[in-house]
């Protein structure tokens, strides 16, 4: 094995310290979440009491978040994949402009976008108090991630050629879309799906503005729990959030490694 110089060890030490700085708070939160009484210290015993309390009091927010995440996934798939395909096929400046335009909500602070939505649609029927109001915000925010992810795959391969071949063989648009384009873009579609779902479950800025007492999402409930209840409750809540989000993140990494 190659001998490593002092520089390597110094770099390794910095990396480990930085990782510890980031990971330690999360480990703390997990520990606090299952500790019976944090003020007495972890030695006072572990307990699932707080986790159960969160499920009791905030179970609804978890369901709302999952519901919105699933609906968001469906919406971004339906809108994003055909849009990416259209952008990949359309040459020139217009396609570029559209691509930039849909990325705009990512650059603008979520609170600003959300306030804009309230101003524009807040008085339209029952939309404001329905959970689909938050969904609309999430779609605006996550759609570019789906489009970008699919577009990257479409641009990297010979999709236009495959499309032309399928056309000469007599396949109309939707037939080509579902038999040739989607199956060959599934890597990008899957990566995009995991990305938008993760973002939707964790989204706080817009949801804070868009929610009503009956449509609170998990991150909004989490902020409330930390602000008004015992530290153990907020921590247990975070633990549940981790349980939802970590498998998605791992799946994303596995997918990225396979490509």
């Amino acid at each position, binding site marked *: 094995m190659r001998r490593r110089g002092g520089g390597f060890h110094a770099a390794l030490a910095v990396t480990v310290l930085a990782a510890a700085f980031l990971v330690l708070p999360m480990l703390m939160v997990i520990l606090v979440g299952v500790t019976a009484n944090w003020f007495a210290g972890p030695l006072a015993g572990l307990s699932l009491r707080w986790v159960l309390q969160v499920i009791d009091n905030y179970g609804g927010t978890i369901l709302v978040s999952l519901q919105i995440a699933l609906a968001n996934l469906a919406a971004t798939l339906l809108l994003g994949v055909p849009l990416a395909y259209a952008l990949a096929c359309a040459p020139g400046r217009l396609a570029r402009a559209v691509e930039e335009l849909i990325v705009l909500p990512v650059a603008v602070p979520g609170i600003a976008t959300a306030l804009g939505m309230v101003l524009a649609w807040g008085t339209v029927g029952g939309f404001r108090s329905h959970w689909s109001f938050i969904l609309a915000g999430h779609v605006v925010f996550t759609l570019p991630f789906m489009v970008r992810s699919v577009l990257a795959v479409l641009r990297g391969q010979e999709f236009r050629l*495959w499309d*032309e071949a*399928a*056309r*000469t063989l007599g396949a109309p648009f939707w037939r080509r879309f579902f*038999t040739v384009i989607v199956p060959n873009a599934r890597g990008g579609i899957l990566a995009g799906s995991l990305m938008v779902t993760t973002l939707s479950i964790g989204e706080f800025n817009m949801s804070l503005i868009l929610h009503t007492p009956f449509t609170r999402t998990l991150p909004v409930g989490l902020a409330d729990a930390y602000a008004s209840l015992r530290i153990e409750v907020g921590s247990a809540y975070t633990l549940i959030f981790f349980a939802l989000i970590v498998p998605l993140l791992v799946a994303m990494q596995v997918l990225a490694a396979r490509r």
Partner: protein
Amino acid sequence: MSVAVAIDRCGKHFGATRALEPTTLSLAPGETVVFLGPSGCGKTTLLRIVAGLEAPDEGGRVLFDGVDVTAVPTEQRGVGMVFQNYALFPNMKVAQNIGYGLRVRGASRMDTADRVAEMIEMMRITDLTGRRVDQLSGGQRQRVALARAIAPRPRVLLLDEPLTALDAQLREHLRFEIDRLLRGLRITTIYVTHDQSEAMALADRVVVFAKGRVEQVGRPRDIYHAPANAFVAGFVGQMSFLPDGTMLRPEDIAVVAPDVGRLNAFVVSSQFLGDRVRLSVEVEASTLFAEAPPRETFTPGQVVGLAWHDEAVLRVGSLAAPA
């Protein structure tokens, strides 16, 4: 089954650039016509117009058996197309690729399987049926692409540089197979290539393109021996210019003993090409090429005689250029 194809004043602009001047051509049913020319000459553009993948400029029309199909989208035109990069669908096995056009047009599973088996036998790829596309070599891919294009019994077959991505030996081998296939199918075919030997070998008629316009239309022998102009003459083969302006093909100039031929020349250099020796010789300050049998050897500065038959002289422009 096979149709007559008429191309009527089809031109094409991309923005302000003219890719193709208005072009009129007609193909008889079952005829194989090769579009030959350097890259960017408009040959592929015209092929794509026939396929319906590009629309001609205003006023251009494409007719199949006298019926105007200009507005008919590609997917309803009934053409089969083979692409330079094969364009096989990576998510499907070989058999599914070949059967795609049949399934799309509503053929039953049974009929599709029968026709696919027939194509697989015809293309001699029996052992590849269950393979994934990425497990195939270039030559195998092109056979599958041909089978896929032919399977739905297209009215017109369009091949866009189908052999260009393959290495030289395979190219020659597949050229013979495509020739056999086209003779057997008797399907109206347009074949695009920049390779003059491919054009000569496969074509009933060759259409030579340059800079977006047709330079000459004719049988391979006419194109080669009676080119319409110096461009065609130079593109389809090499040329030697005698001091008096006479043009000959190098292979028509025989190297003989000094004072025996029509002219004497100095050998400048000689290249052994395996099946022949290519000589560069000098006559009165002009350099030209001649050919000798492979077992003869030459040294630079040596004096040789050059001989040729009268009928070997290229009659450039003796055939009328197309309107």
